[in-house]
């Protein structure tokens, strides 16, 4: 569906269709390997294991659009994509809050500010007769 849509928009992107097909095939191999590995770990390599692999494989590959997507999400979570989401959802509101507190203007101290502050402090001390 997606490759057809892309090709209807721009025919120069024909390779997208081939890429999508190949990556779908690669994903199916990874899913099958995961099933085989999981079942053989629990049931060994006997005939029962083969039957279970066949049944699970049939169930998953007959609805691969759903289970393939779930597998991709599972892999992304496994590799820690949630960390990025957490970073975004913690840091972005924090940054916006900082900006609102500063009235929309950056107010970080810099060298010029420090110099100005020191000069004012020196003037105050002189007025108070400390020097």
């Amino acid at each position, binding site marked *: 569906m997606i490759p057809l849509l892309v090709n209807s928009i721009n025919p120069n992107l024909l390779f997208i269709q081939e890429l999508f097909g190949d990556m779908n095939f690669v994903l199916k191999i990874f899913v099958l390997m995961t099933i085989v590995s999981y079942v053989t770990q629990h049931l060994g390599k006997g005939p029962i294991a083969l039957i279970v692999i066949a049944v699970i494989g049939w169930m998953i590959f007959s609805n691969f659009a759903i289970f393939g997507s779930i597998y991709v999400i599972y892999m992304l979570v496994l*590799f820690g994509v949630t960390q990025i989401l957490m970073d975004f959802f913690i840091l972005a509101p924090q940054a916006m809050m900082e900006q609102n507190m500063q009235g929309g203007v*950056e107010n970080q101290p810099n060298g010029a500010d420090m110099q100005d502050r020191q000069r004012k402090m020196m003037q105050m001390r002189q007025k108070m007769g400390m020097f």
Partner: protein
Amino acid sequence: MKKNFLMNEKGNFIFIALGLMIGVVVLLPVLMYAFEPIDIIIKIFLVFMIFQTVRGFLGNGTMTLLVSGILIYFLVIKWWWIGASGWLIITLFTFGAFSIITWGSKTVLDLTKPKH
């Protein structure tokens, strides 16, 4: 619309962080395309990675060689840039490098600083 939209708002560091992440990931295929030694080294890494992963799933045997061969054809020979980018993304995620990029784009780089 606000003046200098996307330039003076700190909240928009998400776009900068995403841009930096994509930049880092795209850098590897570009380097592979530009320098042949890097291309060869990364492809050897990829072959090892794929074989190791498949052996972890299926153990030693003919099936491992067969499945590895299929995956190597698709991910190292045919769609090498997808394979290389994918490998880099997985590696960076494993080491938590993207979190550093997110943090750095907010604090260290601070590209969202308003222009005076």
